[in-house]
Structures are given as structure tokens and as C-alpha cells.
């Protein structure tokens, strides 16, 4: 079988080589692709949305002090259109207008008639039933997207603090705005719940409700034009409750702009009247320019040029600092302040933070109105709470520092995990002196605060009835009557502040509009109601006395 093997020519050999290499290359490519497909992790396939979608945001929940839900996001359907897909524009507009009469037909025609657009919102945040009705219309070019929508289960109870969000679920005021700026919100497609941990408030919903209910009752009982109140932890500055009436519904942000709807606790500045005597006495005690037993002759009114400073109920005898406080003598307070001096007074108030603006997480706290000229007359009027207008939040924080042993507190609406020890503002002795005076003002039969007493809870407090400045001077009949109190007074834990705006005289108040007869009893009822919620136990001795009496 010897056949002559044809000697392959160079050309044939080359051809074979080329084919061989090509085939091997192809096999190798197939092999590589197989390995790649089986080994390499597939990148996630996402359906790219054809339409440019408006950004929406998912927000963290807001909880109260005890973990109760105050604000959360729920998914709601929002209706949009792809104008390029719309067949019969007139039909779409007519049917949509029949379903949602509040839509603007002209606006709709403009946005849906533009065939270059692929996306246009029609109506956002629909109820499930509304969405079903639109779905049943069976119109091409209309579609829904799930979007997060902020809801407030607690309703208007926390309205002034919470603020509000806009249609994209972005914070536009109050605490919601603070969350955007400081804690961050997530831009989302659809309505995924937020992964940001919830925000814990210092507010306790139960206490907040107690305060709101008492203030609402006071509003009708004393026919006041408004009311405000707060409960503050004196060591941490946490606001446990903060109510300003009328309330604000966070779901109706338009209302916030209406007159008289401002947050009277932080955006309104007021001359707060005699409750300022707490600061005056603290200043003099801390500066050691007086002692609790020092006697002042308050029998004569003070005169500065054409101004005369009187006492509402002149005592007709010289008074000690204790008596000046419980009789709420303007002349006495003026004398104590003059003795200490204007510079000391200004420095003291400034140190307490009363002369500058501030802010909490719920928004700015208005700057006070400070007199341009701070002379002797101003020193005297400020001593009893006129001539310097400040916010209740400012004032409460200052008094909290005087009560807690002398450390500065910074008001907050967020829960503080640890008690922050602030800078020392006054000595422990001064703080003890102020506590004694406040308690005395409630226990003494002559004290202006005796109607605020609650058996067992050792309440201490001070009244303030400030005439509201009107045209041509102060108005005798229009006052802000306030009561600042703390309990339990031997080691104060909570401060309460209650203000009634323009209360009317009634039979119950014996024809008077002074704070001792309206704001003080409101505070008493408030403390009786909230102390159990705040884990403050009533004192044993008084408790036994009470049960014997029953």
C-alpha cells in the first residue's frame, strides 16, 4: 500500500493552519464565554424607566418619649400621565374632571397636550378608592406610582413642633425641616419605608394631651383669646410637653400662616410680668447684694420723672425679700434690682440667655425685645417683668437653671439619652433660696400661688400678670397671666409654665384677671394630672393626711 503521499504544498499547509487556528479560537471564545457566564455574578437587571420621574423622599418615623408613633410614611398611589400615549385628550380631560372636580382643566390641557413630554403629574396622594375609580375609567396613558406620604396619627396635638412637609415629602417647617437638614432623608423610587432610624422626641404624648386638655378647658373657662404651656425637665432641658393654642394641624400647612396661629411659646415675645421677680431675686442672691431676710421699705411708690411704680396691693409695711416675693411687690423688686445695679442685672440676664435669640430642633426661638436704653427706670421695670419681652421657652430654660442647682439647660424637643450637665450659672445656695421662695409662695396663706398646690406633689411657683401694651400705653383689662411652677420642690424634676392670653374676669375668679386666680389653679390641675405620668410619687405624709380626710 505504498502510495505516494502527496507532499502538501506550502499553500495548502498554510490554509490548514489558518482554519485550525480559527476553529481553536472559536472554541476558546465559546469556552471563555461559558466560564464567564457561569462564574461572573450577573449585574442586577433594572427596568430603566422611560419617563423622567420626579424625586420623592422617604422620611424617618417620629416617635414620642415612650416610643409611640407620632409621624410615619405610608404608601399612597399618585396619578401621572404619559402625554405621548394619550389618544383622545378631550376625553381624558373630561373624565378626569368628572372624577376630580378640583383639578384645573386649563392646566391639565397644557401639561397633557404636550406630546414631547413623557411624564406629567395629575394628582398626588390619592385615596385607594379614588385610584380605583381612575383605573376603572380605562384611559390609556394614565398610570399610578406608589409614593410615600407623611401621616400624623397624633393629629394636631404636636402640630406646632412637627412643622410640615411638602408634596414631595420634603420637610418644609419645624422638626420636619430639622430632620431634612440634620438627619437626612432618602430619595426613593416607589414607596420604600425609610431605613433611617426613627427620631425620638422628648415629648410624652400623654403629658402633651394632659396639658392640651387643661389649656383648652382654661380657654373656655376664662374666655381667654389664647393659651400656651410647657412642661420641661429641669436637668436636661427636654420639653416633655409644649402646647400653644389654637393648635396647628401638620396636614394643613396653610393654616400656619393664619393670624393668631403662631407658636406662642417660641415665636411670640411677651413681657411676662411678675414671674420675672424670680430672676431679680436670684440675681441679687447670687451677687450677694441681698439675703432672704433683708428688709425693704416698700410703703412709698417709686417715682422716675413722670413714671410712678406702685404695688397692686400695697402691704403698708416694710417687707423682707421673702415677703416681697410672696406679696409680689413691684416696689420691693425694683429696690432689690436697683441695689444690685443695672450692669449686674444686664449681665445676669445675658448669662441666662435671656437677651439673645436661640433655636430648638423645632425651629428658631425669637430674639427678645431688649430696651435700647437700660437705665434705672428700665432696671426697675425689668425687675418685675416689664420692658423686656421674651419667649416662654427662653424664660423657662432660665428658671430651670435656677431650680436644678444652677446649671445651664438648653431647651430641646428631642430625647436626650444622658443628662447633660451644663455650665454653672448660679451657686447651689442661690438655687436652694429660689426653691424655698417658690414653695413658700404656694404654702403661705398670703402666697399668690396657693391655688396651684396639689396634695403630695410639693408644688412651688410664681404668678405673673402682665398688661399687654396697646395704643397709648398698657391696657388694664388685657393681660397675659402666667404661672411658672416646679415639682417636687425639694428636688425639682419638672417645670411647668402656663400662660393665658387676655383671660376675662368671672364669678369664679371673683371678678379678677390676675394669674393667682386663673393660671395658678390651671397649673394645679395640670400637675395633679401629669405627675403620675411622669413617675413623680406623692409624698407619704400628705398622702396619709389626704386618705384620712377622705
Amino acid at each position, binding site marked *: 500500500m505504498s502510495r505516494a503521499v502527496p507532499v502538501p504544498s506550502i499553500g495548502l499547509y498554510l490554509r490548514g493552519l489558518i482554519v485550525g487556528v480559527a476553529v481553536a479560537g472559536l472554541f476558546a471564545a465559546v469556552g471563555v464565554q461559558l466560564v464567564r457566564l457561569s462564574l461572573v455574578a450577573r449585574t442586577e437587571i433594572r427596568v430603566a424607566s422611560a419617563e423622567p420621574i420626579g424625586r420623592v423622599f422617604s422620611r424617618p418615623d417620629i416617635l414620642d418619649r415612650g416610643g409611640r408613633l407620632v409621624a410615619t410614611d405610608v*404608601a399612597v398611589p399618585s396619578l401621572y400621565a404619559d402625554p405621548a400615549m394619550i389618544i383622545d385628550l378631550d376625553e381624558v380631560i373630561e373624565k378626569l374632571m368628572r372624577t376630580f372636580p378640583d383639578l384645573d382643566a386649563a392646566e391639565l390641557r397644557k401639561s397633557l397636550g404636550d406630546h414631547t413630554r413623557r411624564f406629567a403629574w395629575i394628582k398626588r396622594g390619592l385615596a385607594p378608592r379614588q385610584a380605583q375609580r381612575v383605573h376603572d375609567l380605562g384611559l390609556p396613558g394614565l398610570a399610578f406610582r406608589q409614593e410615600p406620604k407623611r401621616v400624623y396619627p*397624633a393629629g394636631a396635638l404636636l402640630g406646632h413642633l412637627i412643622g410640615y412637609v411638602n408634596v414631595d415629602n420634603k420637610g418644609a417647617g419645624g422638626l420636619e425641616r430639622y430632620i431634612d437638614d440634620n438627619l437626612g432623608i432618602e430619595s426613593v423610587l*416607589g414607596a420604600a419605608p425609610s431605613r433611617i432610624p426613627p427620631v425620638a422626641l422628648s415629648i410624652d404624648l400623654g403629658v402633651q394631651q394632659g396639658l392640651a386638655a387643661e389649656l383648652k378647658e382654661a380657654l373656655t373657662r376664662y374666655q381667654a383669646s389664647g393659651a400656651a404651656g410647657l412642661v420641661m425637665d429641669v436637668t436636661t432641658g427636654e420639653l416633655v410637653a409644649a402646647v400653644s393654642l389654637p393648635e396647628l394641624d401638620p396636614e394643613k400647612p396653610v393654616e400656619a400662616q393664619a393670624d393668631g396661629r403662631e407658636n406662642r411659646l417660641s415665636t411670640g415675645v411677651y413681657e411676662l410680668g411678675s414671674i420675672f421677680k424670680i430672676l431679680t431675686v436670684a440675681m441679687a442672691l447670687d451677687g450677694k447684694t441681698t439675703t432672704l431676710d433683708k428688709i425693704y421699705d416698700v410703703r412709698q411708690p417709686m417715682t422716675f420723672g413722670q413714671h410712678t411704680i406702685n404695688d397692686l396691693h400695697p402691704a403698708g409695711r416694710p417687707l423682707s425679700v421673702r415677703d416681697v416675693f410672696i406679696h409680689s411687690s413691684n416696689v420691693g423688686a425694683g429696690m432689690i434690682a436697683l441695689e444690685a445695679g443695672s450692669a449686674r442685672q444686664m449681665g445676669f440676664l445675658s448669662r441666662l440667655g435671656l437677651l439673645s435669640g436661640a433655636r430648638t430642633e423645632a425651629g428658631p426661638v425669637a430674639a427678645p425685645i431688649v430696651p435700647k436704653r437700660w437705665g434705672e427706670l428700665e432696671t426697675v421695670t425689668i425687675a418685675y417683668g416689664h420692658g423686656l419681652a421674651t419667649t416662654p421657652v427662653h424664660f423657662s430654660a432660665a428658671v430651670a437653671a435656677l431650680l436644678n442647682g444652677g446649671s445651664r439647660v438648653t431647651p430641646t424637643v428631642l430625647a436626650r439619652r444622658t443628662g447633660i450637665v451644663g455650665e454653672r450659672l448660679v451657686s447651689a445656695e442661690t438655687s436652694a433660696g429660689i426653691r424655698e421662695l417658690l414653695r413658700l409662695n404656694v404654702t403661705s396663706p398670703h402666697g399668690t400661688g396657693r391655688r396651684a398646690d396639689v396634695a403630695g406633689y410639693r408644688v412651688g411657683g410664681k404668678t405673673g400678670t402682665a398688661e399687654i401694651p396697646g395704643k397709648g400705653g398698657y391696657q388694664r383689662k388685657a393681660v397675659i397671666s402666667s404661672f411658672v411652677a416646679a415639682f417636687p420642690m425639694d428636688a425639682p424634676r419638672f417645670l411647668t409654665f402656663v400662660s393665658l392670653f387676655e383671660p376675662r374676669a368671672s364669678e369664679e375668679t371673683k371678678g379678677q384677671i390676675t394669674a393667682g386666680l386663673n393660671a395658678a389653679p390651671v397649673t394645679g390641675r395640670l400637675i395633679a394630672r401629669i405627675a403620675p405620668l411622669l413617675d413623680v410619687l406623692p409624698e407619704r405624709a400628705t398622702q396619709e393626711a389626704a386618705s384620712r380626710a377622705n
Partner: protein
Amino acid sequence: MLRLLSVAAMALTIASAFGLYQTKYDTRQLEAKLQAGERSIEKMEGDIAVLRAEKAYLARPERIEALAKRQGLGPIAGHQYVLPGELQAKVQASQHEAASQKAEKASVRGPDHIEALLRQQDSLAGETR
């Protein structure tokens, strides 16, 4: 030899093609399953959010307060606190009081009509059974 190699390679390629197709098909199935799962999680999460909001709405203090008032409840008064050591005495005293009150009621008002009615109903129920 070369032919054998070619045939083997061809068979291998076809086999891997089928294998790949199978894997891809399975993957698609799994992906669809995963997506369905994710969608249902999303829906559940949405439902949970709504239910939590509804629960919080129903438990808002304003509403609870009105309901509690209707039941005759109110804030705790100072004298209602009892120390653990005094509990025994307090319970006995209140039981004693309740017993004497009941006796007093019975002597003043005669028989308890409602109780009689309830008994009557019980016995009627017993008969029908």
C-alpha cells in the same frame, strides 16, 4: 484522530449550550420568584406601615381620654397610691366595706332585681339545654 477530537468537541459544545440554556432558564425562574418575593415584602411593609399608623391613630391620647372618661376613669389621685406593706390591710378594709355595703343595700332595697333576673335567665337557659 483529528476527526474524533472534532466530534468530541462538537458534542461538548452542544452539551454546554444545553446546559447553559437550562441554567439560564432556572435562573430566570428564580429571578421571577425573587421579584415576586420582593414585591410581596414591599407590599407587606406598606401594609405594616398603614396598620401601625392606624393603630397609633386609634391609640391617640385624645381618643383614649374620652373613652376612659366614659368608663368613669380619671387621673390617679395622690391618695390612691398604696405602699406594698399596706396592701393587705387596704384590701381587707375594702372587702369589709363592700360586704357591709351589700348587706345594707339588701336590707334597704330588698332583693336585687337584676340579680334575680339573671338567675331566671340562667335557669331558662338550663332548661332549653
